[in-house]
């Protein structure tokens, strides 16, 4: 509401300031490759299911990071914005894991099929 120092203008337009269109395209290419790899992993014959789960989770975490970091500019944004998103995300993940533990869902994961 009040901007005595006129700092607002300085921080505006940061969205394009750090990331160029070229970066966007490169990120998109990497995302496409990871997605292809993810699906491909599924068809590796005889892959142990715990390894498969691990690989898939790592790859999707990477995709998640790329989209949030570059497309959503969080990598370059103010730390307040980062805290507003990353904190809740961590709580959400912790709660998913706790609920899975309470419902013995981990026991089911590696065994099925």
């Amino acid at each position, binding site marked *: 509401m009040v901007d005595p120092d006129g700092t607002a203008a300085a921080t505006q337009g940061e969205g394009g300031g750090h*990331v160029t269109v070229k970066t966007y395209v490169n990120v998109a290419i990497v*995302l496409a490759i990871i997605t292809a790899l993810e699906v491909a992993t599924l068809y590796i014959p005889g892959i142990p*299911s715990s390894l498969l789960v691990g690989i898939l989770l790592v790859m999707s975490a990477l995709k998640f990071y790329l989209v949030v970091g570059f*497309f959503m500019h969080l990598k370059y944004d103010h730390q307040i*914005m980062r805290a507003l998103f990353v904190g809740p*995300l961590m709580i959400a993940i912790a709660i*998913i894991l706790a*609920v899975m533990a309470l419902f013995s*869902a981990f026991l089911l994961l590696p065994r099925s099929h």
Partner: protein
Amino acid sequence: MADHAATHAVHDPNIGTTGLDHRKMGMWAFLGSDCMFFGSLIGTYLAYKGKSISGPSPRDVFDIPLTSYSAALLLASSLTMVLALAALQDDRVKVAARWLLATAAMGLHFVLNQVYEFWTFVHHHDLTLSTSLFGSSFFVLTGFHGAHVTGGVVWLLLLVGLAWGGRLDKRDHTKVEIAGLYWHFVDIVWIAIFTVIYLIP
């Protein structure tokens, strides 16, 4: 929300004393909250995974190629979304409108894919909301994601409408950026759903 810059060029009421935009900060707070929303839904799905008593199993019904195509669509739409923002920041309004439209179109395609997927589940696999725990938790989780995408498509189309009506230009880049944050978030939720629900056996 409101943009009063036109009449009060000195004090933009959307900029706080930290120099950050209220609306953008509000959107990030909302996305943090939405993490908990989808977290609870995904937690429910995983808690019930493999506990259905009857009905088809996920392996029986999932069409991985179709879903991979949908996932790629959303990722591509994230790219067009940032391109739209970049164009608007350069004040190329028409280009931005085109990219926004492309984003909305891919979003719509994603939703139609989902409708088709649901239709095949119901008609070819006899999997409905009330078939089994899998049916209930799958449809509700992916359905709420689909609803988020649909909301995003409406939002993007309204922005396109503003642009075509000459009411969107460089000054409104924050509005497009916020719509973009929402859109990318919907994309990352799908990244999580795609891996955790579709790919992990």
